[in-house]
């Protein structure tokens, strides 16, 4: 009872009430996303998105509810959905392909996830924690996997039945050569200059800031790697200049 008088929260939610300013700040970030108006045109409340949504069949999650919360600017409801529900979306975009109003509920969830990360929400940290190895590789090398790394051994979450479809992949790959096959050996060996360009992209696009909010340890590890590579590149440039100097003069 006391709690209710302290702040007005979502009466349906069990999570503690959040300050109005924070709710507004979160929504402002969602609404100002360049794609927001493109993904949301209003809503007929027809339920097609939820009916086709694979996640809605397994979780307490409904894309129509997400759209409704956003369209009606239900700030408490939006904030509450960001604590768990938005992470149930599989980002398959079936909803967007079917919505008779031309909305993309999956796209809206993506925007909400970005906002959850920006605001350092615990739900985002929890979801991303198991992916720190993946993020380390993607951010430091720009590449997560080579084709031969995609096997049941590396992905216990595929479950026990994966053995049924487990074929001799290495043999098959040689029989049906794929354009990516040459990356088997080199997946994580990235050209120095390319790495540096990649780092500029991470910095400019805000990915590094997001990482810092989500996982400070990982951020430290990755910035160390980046610094190291930048030093390597500077050294290499100096070497080049020395050689050039020798030639030109």
């Amino acid at each position: 009872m006391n709690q209710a008088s302290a702040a007005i929260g979502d009466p349906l939610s069990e999570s503690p009430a959040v300050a109005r300013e924070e709710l507004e700040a979160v929504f402002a970030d969602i609404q100002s996303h360049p794609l927001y108006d493109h993904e949301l045109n209003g809503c007929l409340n027809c339920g097609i998105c939820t009916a086709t949504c694979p996640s809605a069949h397994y979780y307490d999650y409904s894309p129509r509810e997400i759209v409704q919360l956003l369209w009606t600017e239900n700030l408490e409801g939006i904030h509450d959905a960001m604590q768990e529900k938005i992470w149930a979306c599989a980002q398959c975009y079936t909803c967007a392909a079917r919505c008779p109003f031309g909305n993309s509920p999956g796209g809206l969830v993506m925007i909400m996830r970005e906002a959850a990360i920006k605001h350092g929400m615990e739900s985002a940290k929890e979801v991303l924690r198991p992916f720190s190895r993946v993020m380390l590789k993607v951010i430091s090398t720009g590449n997560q996997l080579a084709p031969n790394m995609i096997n049941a051994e590396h992905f216990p979450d595929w479950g026990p039945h994966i053995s049924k479809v487990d074929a001799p992949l290495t043999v098959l790959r040689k029989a049906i050569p794929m354009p990516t096959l040459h990356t088997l050996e080199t997946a994580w060996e990235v050209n120095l200059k390319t790495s540096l360009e990649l780092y500029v992209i991470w910095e400019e696009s805000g990915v590094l800031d997001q990482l810092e909010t989500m996982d400070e340890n990982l951020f430290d590890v990755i910035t160390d790697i980046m610094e190291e590579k930048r030093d390597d590149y500077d050294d290499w440039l100096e070497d080049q200049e020395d050689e050039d100097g020798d030639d030109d003069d």
Partner: protein
Amino acid sequence: MSKPVLIVGGGPAGLSAAHALASVGQSVVMVEKEDRLGGAPILSGYAKLIPSGEWARDAIGSMVARVEQNALVEARLNCQVNEFSGAPGKFQAQLSDGSKIEAGATILTTGFTHFDSINKPEWGFGTYDDVVTTTQVEQMISTGGGVRCPSDGRKPERVAILLCVGSRDRQIGREWCSKVCCTVSANLAMEIREELPDCHVYIYYMDIRTYGLYEDLYYWKSQEEFRVKYIKARIAEVTSDGQRLIVKGEDTLVKRPITIPFDMVVHAIGMDPNVDNMKLGAIFDVDLESHGHIGRGSNYSALATTSRAGVFVAGAATGPETIDDSISQGQAAAMAALATLNQNIGAA
């Protein structure tokens, strides 16, 4: 003697205009592309009409007979207008039967085209025999055959009617509401329950638009007296488990996805612009409005006008309309055409 009025399209709107003109002594040439007069209610074999409850063949049939028996109306069947030129009081039309006619004014009552459900493949029409349209159910009833599953002729125990098929859907470029299908569906649901009292009938809707006096006469009555069940959901897809049709949606009021078996699924198909409208627009040099119907010149000061003087429009050619409204508009267009003739008496 004044030149005749050319009426293109022999549905309720055209029949009403022709009768009105003939009843004040004005001659009419009616050009109809099908082999019969009567328009959609006759050509598609509708059963009992809303809101009168009269059989279409009686109600519209008598409008046809009245016009056919009138010596002032000359009906050209299996015929279309190929070329059209001139000005109010002195139009010339080249017809597809090779003849040429003169007309003082023209009324376009070319109506609509039924939405073709094949354009919404996820709802199973064309894939499963027992997915049908409202026009097919109308025909099952009007021919006396009764409502039966086309696959094996059995009496359905569970029927789902899906509203807004071909309407209110940006995915297929049809953003309008077709106006009659909510009431038509409530009416059909009651007819199904009357014929098959053990059959459960569900209607899946986004909004129920039984506007005006249709609210209690159709929406309420179908629930209170006929136990038709209304679920607020738009169906996402219709599939089959090999035995029955499986309908997937979200019951949006209780917020859960639903998967329900049915024997028959009925598409409440909408009213598209007439497929001929691009051609008609070019031949008669009239503008189409943004959805592709024939555009109205004015909404208030002059009824039934188009963008071209002396060429008028009435009925479902202007957008989704009921039969009653099409008939009123036909009469308004007849009045406007008469005024044009009077203003141009003696035009060469």
